[in-house]
């Protein structure tokens, strides 16, 4: 489903932030991406959710070469991907409900169905009483749950999460990871970038480890 071959990436004319990244992920995979700050975890995820293009190498997503994608094809692929951004990127002028509803609305779902699905999901993540709250009035943890709900509402085939547990305590972090596990069990591929080694060791999933933009290990077991 995802294949990187000797991928390099740089921002503008700057130095390469990712070098010679090669790996492949099959449908239904669950992977952690670890590494210190600045190692290139976010950049790698950006390549996966088509926010950036590689400066060299080949990226294949859902059997399509991303460098040859037309704009409408990129949209079609993005609709198969859910993203939890590091800084959430919730829309402040909208309620929690409208933020979560956005992926369904842009896909053209009928409003009755949107209401049903969003209400259910926000209740499930413990935000039933915050449907009309603006993101700025929510705590960091609540915002994170809204961001996760927005990422999973359209039942993506691939879920990419960038430090999804950065703003919550360990108990909620583990709960969120269990949520991702549930999604993975119904077929969604999950890639989570985190520097929380404790969380990674709590779950028995393979790890991609990045150092200075290079993939230094592809472990079948959590990194030590």
């Amino acid at each position, binding site marked *: 489903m995802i294949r990187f071959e000797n991928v390099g990436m740089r921002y503008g004319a700057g130095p390469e932030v990712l070098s010679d990244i090669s790996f492949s992920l099959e449908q239904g995979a669950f992977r952690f991406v670890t590494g210190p700050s600045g190692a290139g975890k976010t950049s790698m995820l950006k390549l996966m*959710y*088509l*926010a*950036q*293009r590689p400066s060299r190498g080949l990226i294949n997503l859902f059997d399509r070469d991303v460098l040859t994608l037309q*704009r*409408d094809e990129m*949209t079609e692929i*993005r*609709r198969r991907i859910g*993203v939890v951004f590091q800084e959430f*990127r919730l*829309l402040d*002028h*909208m309620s929690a409900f*409208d933020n979560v509803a*956005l*992926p369904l*609305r*842009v*896909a053209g779902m009928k409003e009755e169905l949107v209401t049903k699905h969003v209400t259910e999901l926000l209740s499930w993540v413990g935000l039933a009483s915050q449907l009309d709250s603006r993101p700025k009035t929510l705590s960091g943890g609540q915002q994170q749950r809204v961001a996760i709900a*927005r990422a999973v509402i*359209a039942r993506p085939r691939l879920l990419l999460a960038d430090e999804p547990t950065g703003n919550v305590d360990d108990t909620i972090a583990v709960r969120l990871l269990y949520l991702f596990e549930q999604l993975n069990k119904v077929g969604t591929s999950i890639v989570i970038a985190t520097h929380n080694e404790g969380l990674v060791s709590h779950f028995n999933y393979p790890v991609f480890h990045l150092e200075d933009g290079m993939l230094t290990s592809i472990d079948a077991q959590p990194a030590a």
Partner: protein
Amino acid sequence: MFRGRIDLPLSTDPATRMVPWIISVMVYLAMLMLAGVLVLAGATASWETGLSGRYTVQIPPVDGETAEESGQRLRRAISVLTRTPGIAAAKKVPLTEVAASLEPWLGAGTSVLELPLPNLIDVTLYPERTVNLKQLRQQLTIAVAGSSLDDHGVWRRQVADLILALQLLAAGVIILIATCAVFAVIFATRSGIAVHRDVIQVLHLIGATDGYIARQFQRHALRLALKGGFTGAGLAAVTLSIFIWGVVEFDPLLMPDMRFTLSHWTAIFMVPVVASIIAMRAARVTVLRALEQMQ
């Protein structure tokens, strides 16, 4: 289109606040211009109808001529005219009418009838018929020396040229007004794109098409343009009413007929609608072009 959801907080943009005002002024000016063009078009048609198919024959007075002699010369001219194929009628214009038409220039106090006025003959042609003017002029000169025939051609051509020039000028001004409105919308839209770049990026990343994002902007532009357009239309309607329903009075001899038909009103009140559609399209094209440059 009107009730569509707008995911971008466009109504908070400072750059868009002036757009309804700009469009209202543009629509106001465009509506008055269009009304002017329609009045001129009506006046041209009216003058054309009044003058086409008519000639005027002038028989100047001769010194020492008696009334009987003058009458004979007049009858000879009318006789030539009525025998000419294509002419339906030839009637003497009463001297009182000639005097009345001169009164605005000579003043009411002047005894116009005491002046040596020419005899005028009003000639009416059959519809769709033509007359050999050269031949008719020759026959009239033979019958009545010094007579002249005016087909009003020169005057009609000059007036028609003047009106055409005014209409072209008005059309040019309307195009200029529309261009200014389009630039205002383009500026506001580009500003909106710059201000909401992050939101647009999020929308893209969650699967919004360029068309979806463009619709957000075009709906907003349509709402602003309708708001401004109908404000301008209301003001233009008040202004036109003042002209039409006699609050400002003009000499009917100097001013063309300012009555508007239903089709005129329809054309005038299409201006805000057309302006809104143009604003909407301008916003859409601007957004689509800008999005092509974005990842």
